[in-house]
């Protein structure tokens, strides 16, 4: 199957081919191949640039590897080991080859330049020169002889004579020059030569001295010649000096040998001259080739090591990802070998793990959803529900349980329920619970009365054991309701009915009785005298007086039974208290009135008239309790109470009187419960009724340092107020139904 090559691989292939081509051409150039001479510099630069690029690549790889090694990246150690091994395997043979090649080159090139060869060549050239010198001297003598012959030749026969002499002497060219180098006659064996070769300046200088001139002279393409120049004898003074130049070719065997010796000598000298550059050129080429090969091998080592390690590195990273809980990681498939099989198994494993986790997540989501649903149901129950495990650790509690117990049960979740023992409600509840647990009751229901500082509370409590696990109770579910307010509401409703009937049944006949008694007194008193009159008057007066008292009592009952609509408006409670207490500040007051008001108390939506009535009743009640006491003192205080479920304002009216009898404490807010000799006994009952109309609660307690204290709790925020009012209405409705 044909696999498509990636752009990186294509680039690498092209670079490798270029590199090989560059190295090949460089090697050819170093072998004196003329074809690539002009490319030599460029090839050197190209290969040097390639070496530089490889070096940079290797350096980058090396830096990356070092950084990975230092931070213990997966696979870095294995990569380093493989690279080290590859480099060592490549470096050793390359170093050996390089060393021996350099040695071979050095000694090989030096062996070309043997001293004996050099001496032989020098001797050969010297011998050639000597041979030619002899020949030169002969030809010079011949030229001088021809010059003498020409000197006697008439001018008109010069051309003929020269031609004859040239042919006889074997010269290739014979020329007679006159004054200023003017050609007088010439003869040559080359018909194409138009102008004869003139003697040079050196020859002329020699002639001016009166001496002949002879020299070996390579002439262009004609080869080596012997140039001989001789002066013609001058017999007549004043006649310009003439000279004859003869060119004799060094031809035949002697000429070819001379050319051969010349060529060999020149080539050898040239090679000797180029010995060092040649050596360095070859060594440089060899070094460059080996360097490139070595760098390519090192880079290849990095590449191969990374390719080998990459799947293992991926596996390590994949394993780490799985350890972190990431099952979505899929590893790229390498070649279909053992590592590929391993990667495939890993991918399959993570797929299955991912699916298993997804199933578990869905199950957990379902459980969470059901749990949330259950909690929502529990939260909306008006009954308190708590769940305890077999060690009586609190597992679940709804908000109604916290409300009923007046305790933030959230703080005790997963803790022993006994930790909340400081609360008397919880302590008594646990006593009852343990009693039933010890009795082995798995299901029980009981109405319990629990006493505390706020009075007596009645709870209905039902407990059920959760299903057993290996004969051990897995826990308990306890459902309880606070019946205190319900019972109290029933009682209040009964009293209200009594009051209404009293007002209706008793008040009506009182007025005729009173009128009848007054008429009796007016009409028949004057008919009596003395003692009878006195008795009669006292009796009618008593009747009228007692009827008045009864009227007052019936009016109080009527007031108690009356429930007008609340007129709620924002009221500053502290200010209202201050205004009302001003009425009690006078010299004739038998007690000292002190205020301790909380400035953070906000304005509250209340009926100011009824709150005022509450305060009047409580102050009056406290004052009556302090009658006859020397240091009588009433303290009115307010507080802002921030609870976990609601926020309330507390108004406390405390006195330093004798306090309330403990037996009476829980009945003080019921009608006709009073310890005072006078009064209707409805004052605190009305106060309680007014407080409950505002959604609040009231309780009485004895203080530790003496005296009684009545605490009124009113909800601050509107939502809490509405909720409290609804709760009051809900409790009153069944009470009225029960009363009816």
């Amino acid at each position, binding site marked *: 199957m044909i696999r498509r090559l990636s752009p990186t691989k294509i680039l690498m292939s092209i670079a490798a081919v270029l590199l090989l081509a560059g190295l090949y051409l460089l090697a050819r150039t170093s072998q004196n191949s003329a074809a690539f*001479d002009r490319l030599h510099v460029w090839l050197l630069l190209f290969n040097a640039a390639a070496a530089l690029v490889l070096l940079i690549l290797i*350096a980058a790889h090396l830096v990356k590897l070092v950084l990975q090694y230092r931070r213990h990246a997966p696979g870095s150690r294995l990569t380093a080991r493989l690279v080290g091994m590859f480099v060592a395997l490549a470096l050793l043979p390359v170093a050996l080859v390089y060393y021996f090649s350099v040695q071979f080159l050095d000694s090989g090139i030096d062996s070309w330049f043997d001293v004996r060869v050099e001496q032989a060549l020098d001797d050969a050239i010297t011998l050639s020169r000597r041979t*030619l010198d002899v020949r030169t001297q002969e030809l010079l003598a011949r030229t001088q002889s021809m010059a003498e012959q020409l000197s006697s030749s008439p001018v008109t026969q010069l051309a003929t004579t020269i031609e004859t002499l040239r042919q006889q002497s074997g010269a290739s060219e014979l020329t007679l020059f006159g004054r200023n180098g003017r050609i007088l006659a010439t003869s040559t064996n080359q018909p194409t030569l138009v102008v004869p070769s003139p003697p040079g300046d050196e020859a002329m200088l020699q002639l001016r001295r009166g001496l002949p001139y002879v*020299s070996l*002279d*390579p002439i262009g393409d004609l080869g080596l010649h012997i140039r001989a120049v001789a002066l013609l004898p001058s017999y007549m003074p004043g006649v310009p000096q003439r000279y004859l130049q003869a060119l004799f070719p060094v031809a035949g065997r002697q000429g070819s040998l001379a050319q051969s010796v010349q060529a060999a*000598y*020149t080539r050898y000298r040239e090679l000797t001259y180029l010995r060092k*550059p040649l050596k360095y050129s070859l060594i440089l080429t060899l070094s460059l080739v080996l360097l490139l090969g070595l760098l390519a091998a090192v880079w290849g080592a990095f590449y191969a090591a990374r390719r080998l390690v990459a799947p293992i590195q991926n596996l390590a990273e994949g394993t780490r990802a799985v350890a972190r809980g990431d099952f979505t990681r899929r590893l790229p498939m390498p070649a279909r070998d053992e590592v590929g099989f391993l990667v495939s198994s890993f991918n399959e494993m993570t797929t299955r793990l991912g699916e298993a986790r997804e199933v578990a997540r869905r199950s957990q989501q379902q459980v969470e959803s059901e749990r949330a649903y259950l909690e929502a149901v529990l939260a909306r129950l008006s009954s308190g529900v708590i769940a305890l495990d077999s060690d009586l650790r609190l597992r679940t509690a709804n908000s109604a349980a916290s409300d009923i117990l007046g305790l933030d049960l959230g703080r005790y979740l997963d803790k022993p329920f006994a930790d909340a023992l400081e609360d008397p409600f919880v302590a008594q509840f646990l006593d009852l619970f343990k009693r039933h647990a010890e009795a082995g009751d798995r299901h029980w229901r009981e109405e319990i009365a629990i006493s505390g500082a706020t009075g007596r509370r009645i709870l209905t409590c039902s407990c059920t054991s959760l299903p057993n696990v290996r004969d051990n109770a897995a826990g308990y579910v306890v459902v309880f309701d606070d019946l205190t307010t319900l019972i109290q509401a029933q009682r209040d409703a009964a009293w209200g009915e009594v009051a209404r009937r009293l007002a209706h049944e008793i008040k009506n006949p009182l007025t005729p009785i009173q009128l009848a008694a007054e008429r009796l007194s007016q009409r028949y008193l004057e008919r009596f005298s003395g003692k009878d009159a006195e008795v009669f008057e006292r009796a009618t007066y008593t009747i009228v007086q007692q009827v008045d008292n009864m009227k007052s009592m019936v009016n109080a009952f009527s007031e108690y039974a009356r429930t007008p609509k609340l007129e709620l408006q924002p009221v500053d409670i502290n200010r209202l208290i201050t205004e009302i207490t001003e009425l009690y500040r006078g010299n004739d007051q038998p007690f000292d009135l002190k205020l301790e008001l909380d400035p953070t108390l906000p304005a509250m939506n209340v009926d100011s008239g009824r709150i005022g009535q509450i305060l009047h009743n409580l102050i009056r009640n406290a004052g009556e309790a302090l009658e006859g006491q020397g240091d009588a003192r009433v303290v009115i205080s307010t507080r802002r109470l921030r609870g976990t479920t609601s926020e309330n304002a507390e108004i406390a009216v405390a006195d330093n009187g004798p306090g309330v009898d403990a037996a009476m404490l829980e009945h003080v807010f019921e009608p006709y419960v009073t310890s005072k000799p006078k009064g209707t006994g409805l004052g605190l009952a009305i106060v309680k009724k007014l407080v409950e109309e505002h959604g609040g609660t009231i309780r009485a307690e004895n203080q530790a340092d003496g005296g009684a204290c009545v605490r009124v709790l009113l909800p601050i925020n509107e939502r809490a107020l509405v909720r409290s009012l609804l709760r009051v209405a809900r409790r009153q409705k069944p009470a009225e139904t029960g009363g009816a």
Partner: protein
Amino acid sequence: MTNSIRWARMGAVMLVLAMLAPLPVRAQDGGRFAIRSAYSVLRHGVYYLNANMALMLNQQAADALDSGVPLVLKIQIELSRRRSMLWDPTVATLTQSYRITYHALSRRYIVRSLNSGRQVSYRSWQVALEHLGDISGVPIIDASLLEPDEHYDIHIRALLNVKIIPTGFGLLTSLFYGADQSSDWYQWPLR
């Protein structure tokens, strides 16, 4: 860029320099290439050049020549038009090239003109260069080819190269022996 990468790059440069370090580059020993004088004359509508140059081989070039390595002498002549703001464009160029070789058998130095093919031999390279340095009546350009309102300059210089085959050796030889020589440009206005 991290320090490691910077060090790696510096190391690469040092390595390349180290590869070239064993090559000994010799300073030029003696020798002088200079234009003593040069002028142009207008004759029969043609500008002719006359120049006198001091051409003396340095020891390296002389050794190369005596070792049979040919030398190439180039006389470069350029004619440029003068401009005030821009560079001066070259109007005409003329290069006279001579190949100088040593003939060991005859112990003569052969000078061959690469332009004309004419060959002359001398008993010493000094004499040969003396002749080559004396330029007389070399035609440069026809006056009709020049713009009458423009100003022109003539530049001349002499170059000597060691002619080695293959050229790769030439590069190394030049690095080794420093045999190449050249004069400065000599410039004068064309009149």
